[in-house]
């Protein structure tokens, strides 16, 4: 997931949100006039506002139409524009001569429907990048009203609210493009950093796998060569070196399988190898649960168990260890417990790579967790919890 919303989507998302906002703006303007005219119709005898109210209802219906999915079709919004032109003309012709409070073409009962038409133009504009539909909507709203007003002798006045709304919408569309370019300039850098982090995390996981492999195989081979007396090297030692080199050649993604081929890679093999080191291992619990794990997790867990048992054999000064498997629907927990000399984990030197790389590194890499309980003289328990999938 990127840190920030991609620029590629920002423009269309904002246009859509502006269209939805504009739609409600227009509906509120029309409703306000509708309620006011209805109040006048109810309160004043002799006023016939019903046709004007019907015209307002038609304008609201046109707003609903252009805001719907149908409104994106050229035929539909063109027809809506034509109907709006006729409706606002009729509305002005009905209203101007009959209401005493209306003096000119900028009267509030005319301004608000005009504003509604202009903002419905913004609704249509959601599918375009330009301001054309807002300009057309403003002309559809203003020209008929001014014409009718002049024809019926009410006169012309510059409609500040309607023009302000039109100008504001044009400004918003224009400024959005300009300002977005400037304020969202950092988006590519932020998005790239997110991807870089994912790549680095992936590389770190692969590195953990490789480090564990190096610890368990290559360091052993170097130790064998370093401690063998000069002369002929046994064929079995050469074979082991070649198999360890093959693990590395397998590549990071196949290292767990390749390592398993060298070291065993299942619990039984881990126990067998520990017993070859002179350790007596008693196994309890649902061992079969380990076999039901994803092969990648199963191999990592078994190799981590092998390292724990190797540590017991090398450092715990005891000849026995317990291996317990506890399984739930979601997780499998394997515990390696010994009653040896124990240690203080915080005082462990940094070069004790077995627990760090071959146990923690491996289990972390498959999404699991490791807990160590130990203290001097009280033995050690290492718990490895891994997910089922």
């Amino acid at each position, binding site marked *: 997931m990127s840190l920030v919303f991609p620029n*590629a989507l920002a423009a269309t998302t904002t246009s859509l949100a502006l269209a939805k906002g504009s739609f409600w*703006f227009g509906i509120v303007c029309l409703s306000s006039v509708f309620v006011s005219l209805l109040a006048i119709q109810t309160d004043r005898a002799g006023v016939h506002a019903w046709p004007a109210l019907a015209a307002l209802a038609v304008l609201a219906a046109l707003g609903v139409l252009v805001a719907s999915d149908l409104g994106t079709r050229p035929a539909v919004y063109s027809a809506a524009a034509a109907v709006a032109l006729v409706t606002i003309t009729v509305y002005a012709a009905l209203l101007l001569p009959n209401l005493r409070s209306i003096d000119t073409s900028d009267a509030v009962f005319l301004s608000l429907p005009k504003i509604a038409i202009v903002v419905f133009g913004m609704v249509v504009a959601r599918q375009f990048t330009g301001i054309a539909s807002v300009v057309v909507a403003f002309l559809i709203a203003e020209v008929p009203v001014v014409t009718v007003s002049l024809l019926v002798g009410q006169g012309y006045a510059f409609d500040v609210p309607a023009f302000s709304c039109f100008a504001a919408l044009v400004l918003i569309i224009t400024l959005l493009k300009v*300002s977005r370019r400037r*304020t969202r300039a950092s988006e590519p*850098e932020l*998005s*790239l950093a997110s991807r870089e982090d994912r790549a680095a995390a992936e590389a770190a996981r692969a590195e953990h796998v490789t480090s564990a492999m190096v610890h368990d195989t290559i360091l052993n081979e170097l130790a064998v060569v370093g401690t063998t007396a000069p002369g002929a090297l046994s064929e079995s030692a050469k074979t082991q*070196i070649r198999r360890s080199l093959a693990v590395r050649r397998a590549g990071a993604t196949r290292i767990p399988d390749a390592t398993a081929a060298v070291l065993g890679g299942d619990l039984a093999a881990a126990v067998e190898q520990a017993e070859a080191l002179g350790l007596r291992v008693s196994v309890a619990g649902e061992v079969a649960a380990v076999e039901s794990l994803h092969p990648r997790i199963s191999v990592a867990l078994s190799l981590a168990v092998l390292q724990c048992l190797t540590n017991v054999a090398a450092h715990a000064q005891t000849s026995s260890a317990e291996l317990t498997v506890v399984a739930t629907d979601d997780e499998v927990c394997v515990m390696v417990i010994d009653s040896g000399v124990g240690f203080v984990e915080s005082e462990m030197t940094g070069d004790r790579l077995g627990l760090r790389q071959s146990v923690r590194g491996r289990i972390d890499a498959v999404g699991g967790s490791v807990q160590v309980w130990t203290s001097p003289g009280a033995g050690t328990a290492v718990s490895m919890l891994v997910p089922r999938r």
Partner: protein
Amino acid sequence: MRNDTAQELDPLGGITARLFAIGAVAVALVVAYSMSVITAAQTNNVWLEMGALAAITASGAYYIRAVSPFRAPFPRSAQLVVCLLALAAVVLDSAAQWGSNTVVRDDWGPIALAILTLTFGSWRPGWEILACTLFCAAVIGALAYAQADHFAADVPAIVFAVLPATPVLATGSAASAFSRSLVDTLIAWRSGAGQPQASAPDGENPPVPSKASHLVHLDDHVFPFLERVAGASELSVADGERARVLARELRTLLVIDAERSWLSRIVREVDDRHRFAERMGEAQRGYLRAVLAHLRNSGAFDDGRMRLMLHGSEWEATCTIIVPCRPTHNPRVQLAPYIAVGRSVFGTVAWNMGHDDTLSITLTFDPNAENQT
């Protein structure tokens, strides 16, 4: 009711919106001051009118201050302050004209409030904007209704209540719908539905992370040695010694690589003795990479002398970036998007430019937070 805001989900969008907020404040103030002059004949108490102008000015000034990316996100309390100050302007303006107000549509208070309300969509949840709008509209309507007898137009009193409230209702409804639409889209994107490819400068791909030193050592020295040994008929004394040296070197490099955090691989000077960097979430790591890349590439900073310090407790950790700023550069404008985004990722983000032209950015986070995104 959804409490997410567009600004929290897309902090960069909040910076774009800030320009419109500043524009809205400017327009609202021009409307307020010019109309108060034009309608001066209807004003019977100059002090109240001046109070109204002071209130709308305070509202606008507070609004601009609160939408700064350096103070993101815009809180609910800020919206309340802006609205209440603007509403106070409406009330004072009405009081200043009480009894002598003949035309309702030239009252600047409701219009100025409506202009400010229009830009709330980027900052607050839709329901909050709507609630605030309805309250303001009720007050405006009630004020106009109470003055109905003084207005010149011959229409029922209810019309005087509806018409002045219309601008606020219209802009508030629009801002509320705008907010809901943006938040819905952003949440859908965050949940991964139809997630588009994020941008990359000129199609650039993330650089391949550098190889760990023990791997280089393996490839360059250990494997060639073991391959030669596996193919040789005999081991020499030198081979044994060489194997011991290689094992020591390899073990040392394994330890060094295990000790190095992801952060120390991208910044030379890092003090993170308690390994807090490893406890940052994915979004926090990504953000820190972006900030460091920006500081390195902008040219305004001496990135060769950049230092990072991480310390804290089990409950709260602090990451401080310290970098000298080159003379004649003002990093504030360039830093704004990063501070705004940082505030959506870290607990707190603070920045300070010291007297010695050293920029320090301090980020705090919970080292125990689970599922950090």
